[in-house]
């Protein structure tokens, strides 16, 4: 194959990947991806790594090697295409090229290894790791082929999750609690970057997510962001949080303003009676045209503004938590975060996180994390990591951080 028509080649690879993946069962999609892209890219080995929900470990879930029969081809009646055993190969914070590729979301070429991030529509899924023969220039074929297909790989994996357990289960480092299964079903993707708007969020510990949920939606000229944290714990808290989120989404989609969104949640939580409790919430709506936002702060969440290395607590009047509000008790307030600064919403679990010596996680520690020069989209992962490290590995309550920035940050498509 000549390199004189790289685009035609990329499109042909995309087309063959798409048709092979659609022909395969959902659970076989990861293996199909490497079986198609390995030969097509001229690699001698191609691994697909997927990240766990905490963004801590990358797990290999499929491998193709030149000259070996593919796992998909082995799928006879008795072999059933048994996938390779999952491996804990890379810590996201580790020194490997794949880990760096994932953290920084950039293509890495290290000797004969090429790493391509696999991310799509706010889902940071993992990394494709190709090994090329020493005699081959990676820039010639592997790099462009993987770059041209990574987005499609992401879409195919997301779709595969919807109709099989295989991909989802093998991503996980820990078994989810029932509450976490509920929460991850309702959570939006953990990040978004579009023209003039960036949002990112993460619940720690992800596999035990119970009381906290976040939400965001980006439409033509509106950014909606919400952080909700239910009182109590266990399934009761998870159910309260989910009900409140459904109520907020319902009201928002019906065109109601922030105050009525909160009132809808009051109604729903009250009507459920026993078994549901209060839900603390920060509801934000930003007009992306003017860059100005409004917010309703109901109960506990912490609202912060980050700019030029400094973190400020934003003073917004606190109204009763969802489930506790009465007519006229809440009003929406101007959001005192201007464009190009970062809105930070933190659930009370962040500052309630205690070390083994009972020392609380402080705003200064949060500021240290935010001050480090990093992509905003990677910051919630770093906050979760700092909180987890502070607690000696185990966070006592859901600790959730939502970051958003808007304004002329990346207007126009790349």
């Amino acid at each position: 194959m000549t390199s004189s028509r790289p685009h035609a080649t990329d499109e042909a690879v995309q087309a063959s990947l798409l048709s092979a993946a659609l022909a395969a069962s959902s659970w076989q999609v990861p293996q199909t991806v490497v079986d198609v892209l390995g030969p097509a890219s001229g690699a001698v080995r191609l691994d697909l790594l997927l990240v766990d929900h905490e963004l801590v470990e990358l797990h290999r879930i499929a491998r193709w090697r030149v000259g070996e029969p593919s796992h998909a081809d082995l799928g006879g009646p008795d072999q059933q295409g048994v996938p390779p055993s999952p491996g804990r190969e890379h810590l996201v914070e580790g020194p490997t090229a794949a880990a760096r590729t994932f953290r920084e979301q950039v293509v890495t070429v290290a000797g004969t290894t090429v790493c391509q991030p696999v991310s799509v529509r706010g889902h940071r899924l993992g990394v494709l790791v190709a090994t090329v023969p020493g005699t081959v220039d990676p820039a010639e074929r592997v790099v462009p082929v993987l770059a041209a297909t990574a987005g499609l790989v992401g879409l195919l994996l997301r779709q595969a999750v919807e109709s099989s357990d295989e991909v989802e289960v093998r991503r996980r480092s820990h078994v989810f609690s029932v509450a976490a299964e509920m929460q991850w079903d309702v959570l939006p993707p953990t990040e978004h970057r579009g023209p003039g708007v960036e949002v990112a969020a993460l619940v720690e510990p992800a596999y035990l997510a119970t009381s906290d949920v976040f939400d965001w939606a980006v439409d033509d000229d509106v950014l909606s962001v919400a952080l909700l944290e239910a009182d109590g714990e266990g399934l009761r808290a998870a159910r309260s949080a989910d009900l409140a989120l459904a109520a907020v989404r319902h009201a928002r989609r019906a065109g109601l303003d922030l105050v009525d969104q909160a009132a809808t949640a009051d109604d729903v939580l009250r009507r459920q009676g026993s078994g549901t409790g209060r839900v603390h919430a920060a509801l934000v709506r930003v007009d992306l045209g003017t860059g100005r936002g409004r917010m309703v702060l109901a109960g506990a969440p912490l609202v912060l503004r980050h700019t030029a290395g400094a973190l400020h607590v934003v003073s917004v009047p606190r109204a009763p938590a969802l489930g506790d509000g009465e007519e006229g008790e809440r009003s929406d307030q101007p959001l005192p975060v201007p464009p190009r600064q970062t809105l930070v919403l933190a659930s009370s679990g962040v500052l309630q996180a205690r070390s083994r010596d009972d020392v609380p996680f402080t705003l200064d520690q949060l500021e240290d994390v935010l001050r480090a020069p990093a992509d905003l989209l990677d910051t919630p992962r770093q906050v979760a990591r700092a909180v987890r490290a502070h607690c000696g590995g185990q966070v006592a309550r859901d600790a959730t951080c939502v970051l958003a920035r808007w304004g002329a940050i990346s207007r126009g498509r790349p």
Partner: protein
Amino acid sequence: MGRGRETDQRAQGEAASWEELSRALVDVVHRGVSGAPDDLTPVQLRCLEVLAATGGTSRVGDLAVALGVVASSASRLVDRLVALGLVSRRAGRSRREVDVMITAAGRRALRRCAAAVSHALEQVAAQMDPDDRRSLRRGLAALSEVAARAQQPQGSLDVPTEDR
């Protein structure tokens, strides 16, 4: 309270089997556990206690030995606690070999249940003669001490083993 009744009690105490004598205590403990907001079974509570006592982390196989149940029972027990978010388990490995860890929510549930059991026992013990209550506490403390020294598994808590 007359002498006669006390003598009756003592005679009864000497005639009764240990199992019969322990019933009331076990019943009160069970009532305490089931009255706690966490709806744990006594075995689940015991499992959390063992995990907390071993520094928070244990293998399912070791847990089974400590609880005096077979590995498959311990594994099922752990699965239930994982579902409730009270214990966490790494994914993808053999169920018996993997480390399980008590979660922060598990420690809170344990504290609530321990408090509920203490409360239930206190309420019943408050109706005892003060001397009897003191004797009971002394006796239970002595029992705990020798039981700990014996370092033996506690015996089956869910299924009685017939083959002993």
